[in-house]
């Protein structure tokens, strides 16, 4: 849920910016929004819903996940002209690339899993297997394709929240904040955005 923090921070900052400048907080119409909902449904079933995620095999889940990514790629192409959407799209495409090259799952190293789940029971995860009901697969860095794009970053120790994230996630995080912040900006910024529609 760490990426939702970006939405909340960006939204709050953008609305404050608009209020301070006595402007309206203006959003634009994204194209083909139905594709996002369509892409989210299979992910909701295989990652979030406890009743279904425990019943779906990893191979089926992987196929559904890749189908979902394809829908999101199409959505990104529909909205590629919007400059403020570029960092988010770039982050997503980096994640999609490393996932597609590693059998349909986001790779994470054993050392990283050990660090995040230090108090987990022995045998709760295995090398080469999917990590619980997450989007991740535990792979050694030397057999990971594009290891640089895998879940290899963590938050500083003074933040008491254990999470591993990728370069793509970082771009998505920063992109969401920037996008929502920019919507509270001056009219010229919004006009530039509209010219690209």
């Amino acid at each position, binding site marked *: 849920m760490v990426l939702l923090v970006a939405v909340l921070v960006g939204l709050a900052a953008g609305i404050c910016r608009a209020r301070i400048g006595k402007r309206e907080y203006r959003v634009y119409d994204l194209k083909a929004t139905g594709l996002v909902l369509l892409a989210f449904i299979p992910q909701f079933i295989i990652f979030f819903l406890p009743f279904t995620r425990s019943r779906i095999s990893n191979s089926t889940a992987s196929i559904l996940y890749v189908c979902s990514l394809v829908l999101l790629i199409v959505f990104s192409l529909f909205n590629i002209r919007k400059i403020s959407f570029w960092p988010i799209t770039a982050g997503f495409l980096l994640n999609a690339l490393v*996932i597609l090259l590693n059998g349909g799952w986001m790779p994470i190293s054993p050392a990283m899993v050990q660090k995040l789940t230090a108090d987990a029971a022995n045998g709760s995860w295995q090398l080469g297997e999917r990590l619980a009901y997450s989007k991740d697969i535990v792979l050694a860095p030397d057999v990971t394709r594009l290891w640089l794009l895998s879940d290899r970053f963590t938050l500083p120790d003074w933040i008491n929240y254990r999470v591993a994230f990728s370069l793509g996630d970082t771009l*998505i995080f920063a992109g969401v904040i920037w996008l929502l912040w920019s919507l509270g900006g001056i009219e010229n910024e919004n006009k530039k955005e509209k010219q690209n529609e």
Partner: protein
Amino acid sequence: MKSLSMLSGKFGSKVRLVIFVLTLVLFVLAAGAPFATGSVGG
């Protein structure tokens, strides 16, 4: 009539904002792939 049109305009902009943010939230949850202990999927 004018106030009605202003009201619908204001309501419309709120609906657009909600749809925009909801789409963004769904996209971010589906496009991101962080792994956190205790929660999954972004």
